[in-house]
């Protein structure tokens, strides 16, 4: 699988679920990409660098979301 393919799968998969939730575990992304975690991580890292995905962290747990989606950006004076 090439990077563009993986990106399309992740964007389509997360967009479909956006109504219900905006933050996802790494495992959710790896499943969408259909690769083992270590291989999927390379694509996910690249998506963060390109600004397709962004990190969300509670401090103890990390999650991923499509950039700019979810309540956080507006609610925390970060526009």
């Amino acid at each position, binding site marked *: 699988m090439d990077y563009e393919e993986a990106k399309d799968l992740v964007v389509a998969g997360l967009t479909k679920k956006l109504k219900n939730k905006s933050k996802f575990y790494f495992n959710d992304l790896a499943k969408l990409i259909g690769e083992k975690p270590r291989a999927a991580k390379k694509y996910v*890292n690249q998506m963060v660098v390109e600004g397709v995905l962004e990190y969300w962290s509670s401090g103890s747990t990390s999650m991923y979301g499509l950039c700019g989606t979810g309540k956080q950006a507006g609610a925390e004076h970060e526009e």
Partner: protein
Amino acid sequence: MAKHETPMLDQLETGPWPSFVSDLKQEAASRAKNENNIEYQIPQDVVEDLIGIMELSYEHGRTHWKHGGIVGVFGYGGGVIGRYCDQPEKFPGVAHFHTMRVSQPAGKFYTTKYLESICELWERRGSGVTNMHGSTGDIIFLGTTTPQLEEVFYELTHNLNQDLGGSGSNLRTPSDCIGQARCEYACFDTQALCHDLTNEYQDELHRPAFPYKFKFKFDGCPNCCVASIARADLSFIGTWRDDIRIDQEAVQAYIGGEIMPNANAHSGRDWGAFDIEKEVIGLCPTNCMWMDGKELKIDNRECTRCMHCINVMPRALRIGNDRGCSILAGAKAPILDGAQMGSLIVPFIKVEEPYDEIKEKVIEPIWDWWMEEGKNRERLGELMKRQGFQRLLEATGFDPDPRMVQEPRTNPYIFWKEDEVPGGFERDINEFRKYHQR
């Protein structure tokens, strides 16, 4: 006069112990005076608002902090913990109050110049309030605003040669004891291994892809000064596989009172004459020591490395010469499923650069298994409990070893599989009945 009235916090200061409230007030006063003409990049009264919101939380009996967020520095998925207050109008100084974790040097050796530099940086671009150190060992910078995060990171990395630590579902900043730098008990160079693995696993430290947090801790000997056995998903504990070295003359010197036991640590009170039978031999958990006339004897095969005798008589008893470490897996604090101590997976391994055996045979197979099988927010210890220790052994390829069980029949998680048993599980019942009546 203080910005906010704080009667409840004031009361805390009246206790017998040094008070964090007094520290905060001192910092608030120092920022208000600004004798060093610092160009504060976040509100000068941030600490006053911090004290104020804390008083309000005590008054309401509930927190006014929200934690978590999208804040971070570019390319890093850890090291910054977003923190906001839900009373930004009343306490604008702490509307944003993000935490930054700074990776501590191995063994926590600092120069005064370095400490001054990080304090100056945090005074200028943050609240000036720090926590030395957090539970994982990092230097914790408490409280800054979102625009300052990249600025602090730039100065840390460019001027101080200093990286951020781990947070979130990352490898957390590896942490070690002071090791061979100052301690004669250290069985391997904890700082070298800690530093090497920190550099090797930068991607795991900064880009979260684990189910949850993962901690390495390195203890040079079984005294476990960084408590790796209780807190690290993978603990490296120094040990030796030959005999404890005994200096019989020094043993006699302890008995005769010429050398004080425990390196004179209990000299504040008269505990009477040193009694080797009562204080050392009688306390050996495996009863593997005895006096043979004037000679102290140890049955080293029975020694479980409790360290007591060595701690009491460090001049007479020394760690062995064939040194390495034991590796234990799965310790954790009780967030989800109760506290767990680490389980032994590698009884002994030599600790030699470039540490390939440790990386390729232990760490990476365990990570592969946990990343594939671990549920979200499941620590390694919980996965071991859920799927069984045997699955961990399969993932790593280690053979079961009697040293992996605490004592016979207490850890029944290693089972035979059919293909490991000669003849399998099927039996000829007629043959069996020849020897055993119904």
